[in-house]
């Protein structure tokens, strides 16, 4: 049973829009969810669902023509010195200001999708890790060096002392990703965000990296937000899951419920349409008809209406539904489970 604790991160009604020449794109359109300490939240969805833009909004990395137009991002900060904690709305902070910068990389760390692109090719790994430490803690270069070596060791890089002098392109894909994880951990963040960290690497290397993430999560007692389109990874790693589609949350709940009792038509269809290691060989997969609508052409009402087998014309295409608790643990955004009036 889950102990009722304060969430570490609370997103309420987040909306991020991009003002392009061709029109306004609502990349994130009213997203709310919680991340609890020491638990893994998996965000699953296809292209255009807004998962990457959501985490960029959390980290306040959205640049014009994009901006957060509405919503709150409550983050729980432990103040060691004063022995108390307080909540901060990250959406209100200046994205380039000192406060946000002291949170980014320090309290909240990011593992990006392409480790090759995330490391500077002209600085050694060691340099970059030391820089990361010294940015947030007032330590001497030697002290920072030692911390960096320790981190590389923790993430399983052989010969960490030697690795400090290597450049990112000298390492293999798996080692690079480990080094990236090491860099994210330098300041002991309370929240780690992983943006599809295994999409670019081999299956056997992916298994190593996922194992590593599981281990360090236990050891460092971090909360993790894990973004991926791979349902297998979600099943193996996540405690809680949110399913996103076209900028909105369709369903959220504990991982077991989502996989064994999906309620939203999209979640159901998605799970059925993926060939798993156990699906019958050469059988026809049930598919979701059509394709993801263009965000400039958002349909009125529920974003999934056009492809939904259970759609109710007159209701589903008029107003968008809201996340509503349906079972004890699951919230679903669908008019099958609640009245139109509840959405208001």
């Amino acid at each position, binding site marked *: 049973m889950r102990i009722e604790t304060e969430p570490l991160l609370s997103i309420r009604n987040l909306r991020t829009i991009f003002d392009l020449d061709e029109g306004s794109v609502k990349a994130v359109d009213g997203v709310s969810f919680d991340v609890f300490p020491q638990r893994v939240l998996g965000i699953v969805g*296809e*292209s255009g669902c807004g998962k990457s833009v959501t985490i960029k909004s959390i980290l306040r990395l959205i640049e014009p023509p994009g901006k957060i137009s509405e919503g709150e991002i409550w983050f729980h900060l432990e103040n060691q010195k004063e022995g108390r904690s307080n909540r901060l709305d990250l959406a209100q902070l200046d994205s380039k200001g000192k406060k946000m910068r002291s949170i980014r990389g320090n309290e909240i760390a990011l593992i990006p999708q392409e480790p090759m692109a995330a490391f500077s090719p002209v600085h050694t790994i060691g340099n970059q890790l030391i820089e990361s430490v010294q940015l947030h803690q007032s330590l001497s270069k030697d002290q920072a060096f030692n911390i960096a070596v320790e981190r590389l060791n923790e993430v399983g890089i052989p010969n960490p002392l030697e690795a400090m002098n290597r450049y990112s392109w000298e390492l*293999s*894909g*798996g*080692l690079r990703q480990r080094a990236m994880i090491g860099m994210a951990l330098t300041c002991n963040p309370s929240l780690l965000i992983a943006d599809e960290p295994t999409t670019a690497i*081999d*299956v*056997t*290397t*992916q*298994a*190593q990296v*996922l*194992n590593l993430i599981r281990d360090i999560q236990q050891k460092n007692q971090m909360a993790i937000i894990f973004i991926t*389109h*791979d*349902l*297998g*990874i*979600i*099943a*193996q*790693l*996540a405690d809680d899951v949110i399913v996103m589609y076209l900028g909105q949350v369709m369903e959220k709940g504990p*991982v*077991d419920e989502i*996989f*064994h009792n999906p309620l939203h038509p999209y979640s159901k*269809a*998605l*799970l059925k*349409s*993926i*060939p*798993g*290691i*156990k*699906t019958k*060989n*050469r*059988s*026809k*997969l*049930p*598919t*979701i008809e059509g*394709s*993801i609508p263009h965000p400039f052409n958002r349909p009125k009402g529920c974003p999934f209406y056009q492809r939904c087998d259970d759609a109710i014309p007159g209701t589903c295409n008029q107003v968008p539904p809201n996340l509503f608790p349906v079972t004890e643990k699951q919230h679903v955004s669908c008019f099958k489970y609640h009245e139109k009036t509840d959405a208001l």
Partner: protein
Amino acid sequence: MPSENLKMPASSAWLAPERILEVQSLRKYFPIRKGFIKKTVGQVKSVDGINFHLDAGETLGLVGESGCGKTTTARCILRALKPSEGKIQFRKSDGSLTDVASLEEKEMRLLRTDMQMIFQDPFASLNPRMNILDLIGEPMLVNGLKNRKERTEKVADLLKMVGLRPEYMQRFPHAFSGGQRQRIVIARALSLNPRLIVADEPVSALDVSVQAQVLNLMLELQESLKLTYLFVAHDLSVVKHISDRIAVMYVGKIVESAPTNSLFNEPKHPYTAALLSAVPVADPRIRSKMTPLEGDVPSPASPPQGCHFHPRCPHASERCSMEEPKMEEVEPLHYVSCHHYQEIQLSGIE
């Protein structure tokens, strides 16, 4: 179903009538050149001596991680690359055999109508400057169908066959989503009525919910048009779904090949078992403590001596580091290349 022809002969000018492709000792080496005058200092042994076969109407999955040589193999079969060594016996539509590896480019052009390719990246495999009519019609045009009206009709039929509206032929690739572009690529591949289709990661670049649509389409087309597929992929679940048999490649070699269910339930090669256990299962109730394989995939430019897999293999012995294992038949159509397959117990998926 396959005949009783269990042993693969060393060189054959005769294949069972339903055998459409037989690859023998295929090698493709790329030279590594350095210096001002580009001296050859080494070889990347992308494909290092592989054997496999394909029977008419079946799907062979070719699976492996980066650097294993599966894409190079696919390209050699179609002669987009010239093999360094080996034979690729292909049965032509008149029943006779020909060795694709040794053909001249001119002769190869005549064979192109029999074998086609589906590519991985739907955004890169369609010329953005041509409209769909021209794209799908081009293979027919360069192979003799000059009559524009006939071509247009055929293109309309092909579009309908892949589930797109014929009016779309006026449009350009940028108007379509990834899944639709892949259908267009399939339509183009079918325009010459090929018998063999080599699919190089055809669904890897697509959204998850679209993958199912394209896989279904490929299965339907295979049935109705009696196609034979060589399906190259890195995603085991996808390969399992569509293949009759699967060959697992590692650093240029085939380490195991078997009918799909046998491979998944009773793998005989440690690499296959490791690969199977590395795939995360989409069921939170089955959370195994994954003991993943150590180390990294070696580069084909400097593969380990002996059995390429031995540095990472939990069952490796001294012999493995010195001697390359030979491919042996364990059961009908189940081949494995390992010194110790008889002694070790491996688990597949339940």
